[in-house]
């Protein structure tokens, strides 16, 4: 049995990556959180609203990505892809369906959690007002983009890469400034953070909650970046799809 799993591990780089992934990401994330609170203890007083908003908005990104990836994985698990792609369904139509299902699942999941937050903590994320719609839209579009890249990767490299669906989005969490401002990051990492739409959204969220200001410049940055992210995600998925048609992965779905 050990040998069987060694064979599997040796042949699948995503499985090896997964082994190192969680400890590294968690260590980085909580390291930055600690660093921030050591120097800004006054934040703790406002932390409830900020942290709950951050957690809920982060979940929009996570559920948006997971909605696309898991729905796609369901088709692979049930060996249904071959049936789907001999029907008149075009890949771009499948992408549209994945986005729709992801939106529904995210609204149900995050919507439910936001109502629980009102009951438990007397905090309503809906107090953010109209900016909440802008935050939600930008985060879910970014999640869709990552979800498409993950789905394409699993299609091309097989179900051995499926764990990417659950872990990939966490790669951007430490540098998205979900729980702390971007200026906590080292300067070189701040440059990386600002090419993520999510970092602009979470900066914008803090501006609304702390300064009671809606930063249109941050919204504009997130929108422009998301145009590139979504375009890139769709192109990547279509390229992986074509590679799968060359490699035979639509016929033989597996590890």
């Amino acid at each position, binding site marked *: 049995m050990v040998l069987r799993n060694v064979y599997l591990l040796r042949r699948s780089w995503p499985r090896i990556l997964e082994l190192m992934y969680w400890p590294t990401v968690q260590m980085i994330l909580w390291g930055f959180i600690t660093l921030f609170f050591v120097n800004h203890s006054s934040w703790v007083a406002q932390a409830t609203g900020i942290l709950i908003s951050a957690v809920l908005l982060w979940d929009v990104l996570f559920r948006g990505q997971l909605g696309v990836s898991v729905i796609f994985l*369901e*088709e692979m698990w*049930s*060996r*249904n*892809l*071959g*049936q*789907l*792609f*001999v*029907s*008149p*369904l*075009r890949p771009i139509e499948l992408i549209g369906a994945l986005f729709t299902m992801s939106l529904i699942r995210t609204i149900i999941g995050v919507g439910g959690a936001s109502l629980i937050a009102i009951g438990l903590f007397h905090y309503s994320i809906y107090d953010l007002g109209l900016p909440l719609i802008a935050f939600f839209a930008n985060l879910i579009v970014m999640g869709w983009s990552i979800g498409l890249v993950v789905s394409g990767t699993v299609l091309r490299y097989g179900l051995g890469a499926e764990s990417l669906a659950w872990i990939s989005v966490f790669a951007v969490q430490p540098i998205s400034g979900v729980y702390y401002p971007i200026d906590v990051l080292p300067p070189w990492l701040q440059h990386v953070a600002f090419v993520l739409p999510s970092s602009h959204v979470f900066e914008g969220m803090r501006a609304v909650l702390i300064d009671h200001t809606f930063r249109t410049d941050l919204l504009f940055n997130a929108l422009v970046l998301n145009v590139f992210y979504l375009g890139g995600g769709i192109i990547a998925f279509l390229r992986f799809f*074509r590679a799968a*048609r*060359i*490699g*035979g992965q*639509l*016929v*033989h779905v597996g590890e």
Partner: protein
Amino acid sequence: MPNPVITVERLTKRFDDITAVDEVSFSIAQGSTAALLGGNGAGKTTTLAMLLGLLIPSQGRVSIFGEDMLRHRYRVLPRMNFSSPYVDLPHRLTVRENLTVYARLYGLPHIKPRLARLAHELDLEGIFNRTYGQLSSGQRTRVALAKALLNQPELLLLDEPTASLDPDSADYVRSYLETYQADSGATILLASHNMSEVERLCDDVMMLRAGKIVDRGTPRSLLDRYGRQNMEEVFIDIARERYLELGGEPRKAAK
């Protein structure tokens, strides 16, 4: 051949250093029932996958209803359908739900009466509201056939259409296919290991070995050529390369 439904020219598929299909050429006449016959790994499923556009050939051309499948497959797919034991349907959906999804994908205008008719003809009424995952393999084969017949295809590609069926059910399915073909004038191409099925249904048999068509003819002409009583003996002759004694070289199938 006047108005062939399928025209294949020098179709080749290589996976790294393995040539799964090797410069195969053939045409199939409208309204005929043809078979790709060969042992495991002969290239039957790979050939069908290229005809369907699930797999992009390394070289060669596939034309169906006069349309190039690489460039215009979405013009052709609504007019054809496919069934194979190598693909499946979502296990957690009921038979009715699965067939409804595919009926919508094919854009059927009157879904309920079509489903009712197929359920009656393929004896699915008793299992229509059961989830696909609960079905026996024989029941699943009948559901897959129902899915393949949803859009009343002019071209039906079937990979081992009676796999997993008991002799009585297999006979029923073969009779159904004969009736469907006679009533609709559809063209059927099937890949099979089942010699009696091929003998009964097909008027054109292509024998595949190691990715090449090594012989072709009606079941009667093949029996005469090899001096055998049934197709199973012909199959064994070809598996043991007796065609080389008859023709010297693997033959190219006649157009």
